[in-house]
């Protein structure tokens, strides 16, 4: 990332994540990059995409410049089709109505497990993080997209604590544990788009972002990561994508 770019790392994250979403999908989104990306997708290529919030909201439209501070306040309900109790909106995941769960991540490992609970030993943590929120339920019950900054301390060989399960120990271990549906689909970073091997369930690079060298990914990943020779390349963020995004977050609360 040595070239000068006309977008921030967060904007890149939002644009690249948005492109993965498909029209007609039902997307369970967190605030921040996931919400921005899902709203961006609606504005650019997926007008029939539906956003759900864990606070109990189906099909809202975000008012530009009024991004909600969490998924549990009235700003989340603007022009929504329906609001319902938290437990019921989460049960839609269990019932199978949701195509994609989409959230940010603090720490992820080679099998896509996420940690947002403890840094260090849970019995005596160096840092107590806020915890799972809806993350555990979403990642347990549907196909996941995670958007996060690509840093070595965030991409670790094994998370200190599995808050939101990915493929656990890889292979069939997720299903063996009793999680028979869902699983990690994509991890989107400011360097690359990552996927998981069909058999081993190890993270691998699917495509590199513009100007990103494979070594840059290796250097910023805390475990050996597969980068195929024929690895893909993403197209840079387009003007219309950035324009929609900047209209949504003019104060750059989430895209600084």
């Amino acid at each position, binding site marked *: 990332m040595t070239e000068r770019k006309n977008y921030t790392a967060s904007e890149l994250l939002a644009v690249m994540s948005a492109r993965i979403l498909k029209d007609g999908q039902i997307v369970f989104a967190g605030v921040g990059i996931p919400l921005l990306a899902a709203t961006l997708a609606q504005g650019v290529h997926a007008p029939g995409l539906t956003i759900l919030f864990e606070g109990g909201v189906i099909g809202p439209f975000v008012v530009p410049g009024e991004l909600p501070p969490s998924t*549990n306040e009235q700003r989340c309900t603007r022009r929504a089709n329906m609001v319902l109790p938290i*437990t019921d909106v989460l049960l839609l995941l269990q019932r199978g109505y949701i195509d994609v769960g989409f959230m940010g991540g603090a720490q992820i490992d080679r099998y896509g497990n996420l940690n947002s609970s403890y840094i260090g030993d849970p019995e005596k943590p160096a840092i107590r993080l806020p915890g799972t929120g809806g993350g555990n339920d979403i990642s347990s019950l549907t196909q996941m997209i995670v958007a996060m900054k690509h840093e070595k301390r965030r991409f670790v060989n094994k998370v200190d604590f599995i808050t939101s399960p990915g493929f*656990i120990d890889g292979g069939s271990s997720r299903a063996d544990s009793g*999680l028979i549906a869902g699983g990690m689909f994509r991890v989107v970073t400011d360097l690359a788009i990552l996927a998981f091997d069909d058999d081993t369930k190890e993270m691998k690079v699917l495509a590199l972002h513009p100007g990103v060298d494979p070594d840059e990914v290796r250097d910023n990943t805390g475990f050996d990561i597969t980068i195929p020779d024929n690895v893909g390349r993403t197209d840079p963020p387009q003007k219309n994508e950035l324009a929609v995004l900047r209209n949504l977050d003019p104060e750059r609360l989430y895209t600084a």
Partner: protein
Amino acid sequence: MMAEETLVLPHLELRRRTAERDRGLREKVMSLEEAASFVSDGDHVALGGCTMSRTPTAMIWALVRAKKKNLVVSRSIMSSEGEVLYGSGISNHVITSWFSQGIVWGVSKVMRHYTESGEARFDEWSHMSIGLRYRAGAMGIPYMPVRSMIGSGVNERLGDEVKEVICPFTDERLLALPALNPDVALIHVQRADAYGNAQLDGLQFMDIDIAMAANRVILTTEQIVSNDSIRRRPDHTRIPFFTVDAVVEVPYGSAPHECYGVYEPFFDHMDTLAEQTKKDPEAGIKKYLDDFYYGPSSWSGYLDLLGADAIVDASRRGRSIYND
């Protein structure tokens, strides 16, 4: 972890406690101070709302002032009211799925201080698991099967508080979540009548299940309306009177958090709290309690400290949800 034998109330004991309650149609309007007497030291207290929404702030304020002790407090997601619980010492044990002031203020330094030092417990469950624990309690069943939380550290750390069960029809493995019947629920609503029939606008969170599950309910409300107006739209009632033990009229009873359609969060106040607890979390939250909890002589005094400008601003933003 909680002793297994007290984790789920045996059904006959749950019924005995419910049968003892005066569930007849009767007025139960009282002050915050009177309502505080419904909470005993050591009680399990469930909070309605979620994060910065419909938090029963005023009732928590009254419990802090009444110097309650050893409360176990559960909520879907905890925000600054969790910091108040820890800082005031009325609870050193919370059960929730997420605990910080809010995403925009980063990780709560107060939560970190008390949990990392071991002074306080923060039992983490998945969001839906907490909801289904209340729901099982509301339904009068001792457990609820679920497909979530399995395989995670969250599950593992809960030890015997969750159990694996096998579906007798499909042989699928599921997790059994223990029913949660709180001793007391604190719920803030937009309007209720003097009997406790409550209407909730907008987001309902887990409040209905909490009210049905709890053994006592303290309702704070922006407004007390006539029973007649409730009876004109019975399909808008969300909590029935017979689950409710106290009704307290408290305008702005969720401030500095929001009450859907009435006011949005008092963001500046939240900024100040975050800033004040950043360097020395313990001193910062103590000062906050001194200023806002112990200082004022009444709830209106608390609102005075928030200031008319902030109240008007939060109200304007709150009402705007109905502007189009």
